[in-house]
């Protein structure tokens, strides 16, 4: 049994890599897949917080690599889903603590135990990014509909291609349908025109993300959240299901009018 290794990366920081990793992980696990989320952002770990597992960390990725802990000791089982586990990053070390070969070895060991290994990549294009990409079978790029984020995504796609990985797929995160409609935000077409890669999901801006992050309860647990539903559809597409892309135009109309009304 060998699981698929998927790295989630972006280049630019703050576009939602960690949120995407946690939610896709939850969505896959809810569909019965055994998933390990691996936080490759050594020194700036976040994935444990977003998944609400921070207080359970005893050993971390660097402990395993340096032989102070066995794989099973460091893996943290999710408190809600038995299929979901987390391999936390070290907070007190930096990215140079792990070499590419060590990362590949670690992931090779992890994939024997599960269906999916999701790697949350650090921002940037340096050592940490290369560590996160090296073991990947597939790569998902997260971008927001902003010129700067798209530019960085383009850079990353180039680097992924240079690393001889298969063509990455794209998640457009934090799209605001109302702004797109007013022509104030890049729309999906604009982004795809530059990046020319396959789209795997569009996630609308959703305030529930902020509360869910603070509570450590990913939105993919709730089917009513628009962002949660979008991440669930991404998970379905990863599993090879043919899920239509949502059209967000209509949902925002009433909400927009109300918020305008309230602002007056």
């Amino acid at each position, binding site marked *: 049994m060998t699981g698929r290794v998927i790295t989630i990366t972006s280049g630019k920081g703050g576009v939602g890599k960690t949120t995407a990793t946690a939610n896709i992980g939850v969505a896959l696990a809810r569909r019965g897949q055994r998933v390990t989320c691996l936080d490759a952002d050594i020194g700036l770990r976040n994935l444990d917080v977003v998944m609400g597992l921070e207080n359970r960390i005893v050993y971390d990725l660097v402990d395993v690599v340096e032989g102070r802990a066995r794989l099973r000791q460091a893996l943290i089982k999710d408190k809600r889903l038995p299929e979901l586990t987390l391999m936390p990053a070290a907070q007190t070390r930096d990215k140079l603590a792990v070499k590419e070969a060590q990362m590949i070895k670690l992931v090779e060991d992890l994939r024997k135990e599960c269906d999916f290994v999701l790697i949350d990549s650090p921002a940037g294009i340096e050592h940490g990014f290369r560590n996160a990409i090296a073991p990947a079978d597939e790569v998902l790029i997260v971008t927001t509909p902003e010129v700067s984020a798209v530019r960085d995504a*383009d850079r990353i796609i180039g680097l992924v291609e240079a*690393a001889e990985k298969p063509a990455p797929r794209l998640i457009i995160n934090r799209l605001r349908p109302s702004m797109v409609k007013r022509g104030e935000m890049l729309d999906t077409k604009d982004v795809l025109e*530059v990046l020319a890669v396959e789209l795997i999901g569009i996630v609308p801006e959703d305030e529930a993300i902020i509360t869910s992050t603070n509570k450590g309860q990913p939105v993919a647990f709730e089917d009513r959240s628009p962002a949660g539903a979008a991440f669930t559809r991404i998970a379905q597409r990863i599993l090879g299901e043919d899920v239509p892309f949502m059209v967000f135009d209509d949902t925002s109309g009433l909400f927009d009018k109300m918020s305008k009304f309230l602002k007056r």
Partner: protein
Amino acid sequence: MTPISFKGTREGLHITLAPAPWREIMEELARQLNRPGAQSFFRGARVLLETGNRMLGVTELEELIALLAQHQMTLTSVLGETQTQDAFVQLRSAMPPPPENLQAEIESAPEHATEDLSALLIHRTVRSGQLIRHAGTIIVIGDVNPGAEVVAENDVVVWGKLRGVVHAGASGDTRAMVGALFLAPTQLRIGNFIARAPDEKRTQVWTAEIARVRDEQIVVEPWNAV
């Protein structure tokens, strides 16, 4: 995984470096070039070096060029990171003279010294942060995205959208031209002339255009008028 791979193309020898330690790469390259029979095969070849994610400094590049020169080979193009490109540019001025047979070829060429170098064909999208530099003409089948840079000593032709920075006639040849199916570069340079895109956004009309220097300035015309 072997640290280097060779591919013969019409433009010359295409060498791709894997992310292996530099020592290993140089040893493997030396070993390959010294193989019996390789001498006559590689002699006089033009080399296109693809560095992938690796960043090469001046010292490393110098070492490689020296090794190639021992086998009468010349590095003409580099595909890779900006830092490597900068090192390549620094070294180009100080590069060893091309091997004799090449030299003869160049000397017999009338005035336009680099015209003889064959074109470099790039069949993919050139993305942000990537820089392509070639001592002849560059042809891109695909887009040149914002943040990418294409620098040629002769012409640049893009069969796609050109939105990055482009420099034709990079060694000062103002007769070079830039053509694209959709010409909207961040900045366009020909020889030592520079033009930049107008600040207001262009309407997305697909017309092939061509840019060249006329009366001491860069002019852009529809391609059909040429």
